[in-house]
């Protein structure tokens, strides 16, 4: 049965004109955080830790704002996590996203997070999904590719350039030792990183943005059933470093000797 209501028709027309962008936001410890564990080294200790938008996602969000302002697009941000991630989503709203979604479940592993996000993408009919190449906490490097696989969208990882005209896409991907220029089409998922926009383009929320963010919708969705395919069982901190060996600038032969005979790296 197919009944298309007037509002749906309007939405469909709207959709043809305006790209719907979903930006996946990972809520991560600030880059200066000291990392500690609790519960017998099985849990990340969030005590005293400041949380921020994952840096790779900040580049993606900024590129999304560019599309919104220059070409017309709606930008929704999404996080899979508990209520504690809402300030991070509010910050994304203050930067300029139109709406936010929080999928109300603890993010345990990349695959289950990707399943939750793929479900949001399918329900919302997004044309472009921007995620980060990697989160700086779990460093999985898997969520964007998995969303693409689960939604049968095209996928570009390590994306450092993105232009969209209608449904055709030109993108630049960083490869080991260079870059690659690619063409593809929407729907598309990217794993973004620095280069997508310049560092100087990043925005700090201003007062007006923060005020406006309070009025924007932050929808809490209940999760779908999704098994964790991996489980984190234990954490370890690196062994403390031994004392450094100092070599005088007048005795560089000694440095070469140490690197050759002791460290055996040259």
């Amino acid at each position: 049965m197919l009944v298309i209501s007037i509002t749906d028709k309007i939405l469909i027309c709207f959709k043809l004109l305006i790209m719907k962008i979903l930006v996946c936001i990972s809520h991560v410890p600030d880059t200066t955080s000291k990392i500690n564990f609790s519960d017998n080294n099985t849990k990340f200790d969030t005590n005293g830790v400041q949380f921020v938008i994952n840096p790779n996602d900040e580049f993606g969000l900024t590129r999304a704002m560019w599309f919104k302002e220059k070409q017309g697009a709606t930008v929704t941000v999404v996080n899979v996590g508990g209520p504690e991630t809402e300030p991070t989503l509010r910050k994304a709203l203050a930067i300029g996203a139109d709406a936010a979604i929080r999928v109300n479940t603890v993010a345990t592993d990349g695959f289950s997070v990707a399943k939750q996000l793929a479900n949001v993408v399918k329900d919302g009919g997004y044309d472009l999904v921007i995620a980060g190449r990697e989160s700086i906490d779990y460093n999985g490097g898997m969520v964007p590719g998995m969303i693409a696989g689960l939604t049968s969208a095209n996928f570009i990882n390590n994306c450092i350039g993105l232009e969209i005209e209608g449904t055709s896409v030109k993108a630049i991907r960083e490869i080991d030792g260079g870059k690659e220029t690619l063409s593809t089409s929407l729907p598309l998922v990217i794993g973004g990183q620095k280069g997508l926009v310049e560092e100087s383009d990043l925005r700090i929320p201003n007062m007006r943005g923060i005020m406006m963010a309070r009025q924007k919708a932050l929808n809490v969705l209940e999760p779908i059933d999704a098994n964790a395919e991996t489980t984190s069982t234990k954490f370890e901190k690196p062994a403390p470093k031994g004392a450094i060996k100092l070599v005088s600038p007048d005795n560089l032969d000694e440095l070469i000797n140490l690197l050759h005979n002791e460290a055996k790296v040259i």
Partner: protein
Amino acid sequence: MSVLVYTESEQGKFKKVAFEVASYAKAVANQLGTTVTAIAMNVNDTSQLAMYGVDKVLNVTNTQLDNFNAKIYANIIKQAAEKESTKVVIIGSSANSKYLAPLLAVELNAGYASNVIEAPSNISPFTVKRTAFTNKAFEFTQINTDVKIVGVSNNSFGLVESSGSATAEAFSPSLSESGINIESVDKVTGKVSIADAEIVVSAGRGLKGPENWGMIEELASVLGAATACSKPVSDLGWRPHGEHVGQTGKPVAANLYIAIGISGAIQHLAGINASKVKVVINTDSEAPFFKAADYGVIGDAFEVVPRLVEKLKAFKAQQ
């Protein structure tokens, strides 16, 4: 049941990481009491793999695969995994391997652990040690799915030679739709990339300006190293973005990392800490890098580096 390993190549030849991931696959196969099958795309001579424990090679030859395509490659590896009834797939940590891994995970409905640095600590439940929090910690991850994918971190496991021979078999998978076209590839030739490098020479704002990078390039060239830089250096446009290393740049897991005029901020160290041996050259003995490095020279880069280049040239000539 055999362990499947994707052995990466470039222009018909294996990359060095192919032998490292093969060595890793052999260790897993020993733990599981099974054999290793490698899959290679357009490689002319695959016989070297036997030296690293591979028992069988699936050779895919198809000019349509000359350019890497993550979706097509992932789908081919899936077909190979199904043919071999594989339970564990081993891949590397190059940009290409990390690109195809999540697609492969979805295709095989497999749990995937990236940045793994040791052979599995346990086979049942299957548990691996990986780096997390950008090298500020290690995490033990248990993979719960029937089929598992392990991404091995560069220069972490090393090369392990074994004796034996490998059979080669032509493999002709079907090619899936790609959805993505490569318009052009812009790759610096004749230079070692950070990802492939065993030695990385990196410099920071202490170098004062882009015109001073000649000595850094020269040091790298004597050592056969890749060049890298700190974040402000690439933000200032002194060096290309591709050279920015650290928590928000490229990760470095080299055997030797030489930091010149870099203070050693926590975000910088996080990204390079997986390197085995670190050398710092800095005028300021209080620079935090001295707490993170193995060897250090307190001195002016403009004096130390040219001198080091000369001495290394003499050393290399003797070798």
